């Protein structure tokens, strides 16, 4: 006998459920967790470095670095002053909730205020896999070109914050900021945006101030 059974289940529900478990652990520890996503070379690790240097001393910081191979990024985050854990995905082009969960026992979550998860450099796959982090942050960069929102709509639609890095290169590159911003506005109206240069330090103060208020608000929310 053939019978039709109603399912109605999100196809990535296994990952989504694990992401929720990760989130519960972050909340229990009272830490704020961010997922940094970007194309390769946009400056994820540079932003991690300057962020860690700015906040070290005030907050306890940890970084989970995802890469296909090497521990170069975790080494840079550690040198900047964070507790850093490297995940090597061994070929996978994105982090998923399982990989993040496996990295958590290496960290004392109760002794962390801000956890940055640095995803694998890729503007496609990471957008589909929730990790349990509280906010998705996209780091765009000027040399990538102004057409990226139009070409990678899934990534631009799913983020809470957009950092535009390498603005010091604007005079040297054909990058139409109005065209770029129009693409962003279509996909993610009103998204919080921080134009910065990790090299010159331009704009970083706004980014760091925002982060400080986020960490403090989050701590109050979880405690309350």
């Amino acid at each position, binding site marked *: 006998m*053939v019978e039709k059974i109603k*399912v*109605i*289940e*999100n*196809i*990535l529900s296994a990952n989504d459920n694990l992401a929720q478990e990760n989130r519960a652990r972050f909340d229990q520890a009272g830490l704020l967790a961010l997922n940094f996503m970007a194309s390769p070379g946009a400056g994820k690790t540079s932003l991690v470095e300057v962020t860690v240097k700015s906040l070290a001393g005030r907050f306890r910081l940890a970084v989970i670095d995802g890469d296909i191979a090497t521990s170069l990024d975790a080494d840079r985050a550690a040198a900047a002053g964070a507790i850093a854990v490297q995940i090597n995905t061994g070929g996978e082009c994105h982090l998923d909730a399982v990989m993040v969960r496996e990295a958590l026992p290496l960290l004392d979550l109760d002794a962390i205020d801000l956890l940055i998860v640095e995803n694998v450099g890729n503007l496609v796959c990471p957008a589909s896999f929730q990790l349990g982090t509280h906010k998705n942050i996209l780091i765009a960069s000027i040399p990538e070109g102004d057409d990226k929102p139009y070409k990678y709509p899934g990534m631009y639609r799913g983020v809470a914050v957009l950092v535009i890095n390498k603005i010091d290169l604007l005079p040297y590159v054909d990058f139409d900021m109005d065209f770029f911003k129009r693409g962003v506005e*279509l996909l993610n*109206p*009103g998204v919080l945006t921080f134009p910065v240069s990790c090299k010159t330090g331009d704009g970083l103060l706004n980014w760091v101030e925002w982060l400080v208020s986020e960490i403090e608000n989050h701590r109050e929310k979880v405690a309350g």
Partner: protein
Amino acid sequence: MHELSVTESLLEIALRHGKSANASHITDLYLVIGQLSSLIDDSVQFYWDIVSKDTLAEGANLHFQRISTQIRCLDCASCFVPAGEDLSCPNCLSTRIEVTAGEEFFLEAINVET
């Protein structure tokens, strides 16, 4: 999209529901995929034939129901299907829009033999 992970996930869900219905065989899977989810049907089918082998769902047919993107303008409230990549409102040209359909990505039902 990441078709192999997606296909493995799909199999896990189908087997779980099939087993709880005491199915001897899962014959069909009905997927609902929004246009914005950018899943490649052929690629899922390719992986499906491999991952479903020697399971309850071996050889099951995959049915893809595609949902077109629908947008609602937050300024003039008109609803429209975007033409191409431009998601702005054709009525008032606003870029303040909300996606109301096209992000679906779920398994709706399965057919089982008991």
